[in-house]
């Protein structure tokens, strides 16, 4: 007969090593000492950042009309993010500075089904454009990739060749529930019809240098094509503002 009360005894028999405990304290103390500076920054950007690596998104390349005068784009970009508690927040990317926190899905080294490993930051951020007479939107990222979640059958999950051909490099499963998921690589660009934007809930993966630092600015180019064939472009620049210790949280700042 199974005695479930023994689960408590069994789990409580697990203890972390003294070395690990000391390491946790040491790292936490470093953060605590740095806290005054972080608090000022936090107030400035009005968002809590768990570790300190911040990514800033800035609307770049101001638009000028034929007369050389500044002209705002005829569309608005909204970035939706998921926080650690699973809630979704959104921020309109206007000229005003705004910030919100993203939940980082995985930091550090990831290994895919090809056996390769690489340094990548994953974050779930959905970009949405609103405006009038828009036909389609094309997003292009200069470094990193766009990704999407896919549901797999057990057969697909087991077929490595098929997974590779579909560019599904990362897979996961819930063996007891017979559920199989994967992450499909879309590439560095994709186009979406204006009326179908809600179908795309993409992830972004950004390479880092192995020390969770982004070498250069990441630029997401947003080209909007109107129904009359004309196009407009705005760039979102993703920068890393702070590179303290290892971060598992990303914040976006919009300018």
């Amino acid at each position, binding site marked *: 007969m199974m005695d479930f009360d023994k689960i408590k005894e069994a789990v409580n028999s697990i203890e972390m090593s003294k070395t690990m405990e000391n390491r946790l304290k040491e790292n936490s103390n470093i953060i605590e000492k740095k806290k005054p500076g972080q608090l000022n920054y936090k107030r400035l950007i009005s968002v809590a950042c768990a570790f300190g690596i911040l990514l800033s998104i800035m609307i770049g390349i101001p638009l000028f009309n034929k007369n050389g005068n500044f002209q705002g784009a005829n569309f608005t970009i909204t970035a939706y993010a998921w926080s650690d508690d699973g809630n979704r927040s959104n921020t309109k990317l206007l000229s005003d500075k705004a910030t919100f926190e993203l939940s980082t899905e995985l930091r550090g080294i990831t290994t895919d089904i090809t056996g390769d490993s690489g340094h990548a930051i994953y974050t779930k951020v959905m970009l949405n454009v609103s405006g009038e007479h828009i036909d389609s939107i094309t997003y292009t990222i200069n470094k990193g990739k766009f990704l999407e979640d896919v549901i797999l059958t057990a057969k697909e999950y087991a077929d490595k060749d098929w997974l590779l051909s579909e560019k599904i490099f*990362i897979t996961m499963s819930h063996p007891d529930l017979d559920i199989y998921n994967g992450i499909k690589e879309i590439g560095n660009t994709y186009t979406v019809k204006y009326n179908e934007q809600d179908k795309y809930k993409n992830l972004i993966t950004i390479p880092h240098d192995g020390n969770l630092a982004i070498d250069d600015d990441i630029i997401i180019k947003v080209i909007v094509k109107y129904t009359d064939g004309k196009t407009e472009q705005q760039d979102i620049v993703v920068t890393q503002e702070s590179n303290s210790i290892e971060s598992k949280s990303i914040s976006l700042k919009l300018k």
Partner: protein
Amino acid sequence: MLQQLVWSTEPDIERIIDTYGNMLFRICLVILCNENDAEDVVQDTFITYLTKSTTFNDSEHEKAWLITIATNRCKNMRRYNIIRKHMDINDLQLYCKDDENYGLLDNLMKLSNKHKIVLLLYYVEGYKVDEIAKILNITTSAIKKRLQRGRELIRERYRKENE
């Protein structure tokens, strides 16, 4: 009017790690089945604690908040990890002091996350169903179903092992 007392106005990280470090590590290790990932999540949870500057009503509020952060981060981490091989029983021995517990822990770790988390909070941390529902932000009926299914799965494995 009396002002509500707050549990801790200033985070004392040494106290927090001493009080909750092992508890969080156990939960994370059972969920993630990987020592390094578990340590990462625990570290991340404590740093979130420091940087969020959340005000807690009491120690139970503080503990539940830490568990919520840690389990959410575990879910995020597992989501993008390829399926890890189940923790080898020999590795498990590094953490367990009692030989008799290995089998039970092994069966618990083989469950899916959603069953593991609910069983851990119910049997190990002693939370009631409605309290777990609040921590995980799901309904009490979902918690009851997960508890029931989790127990069934462990029983099933236990039965097979002893056949």
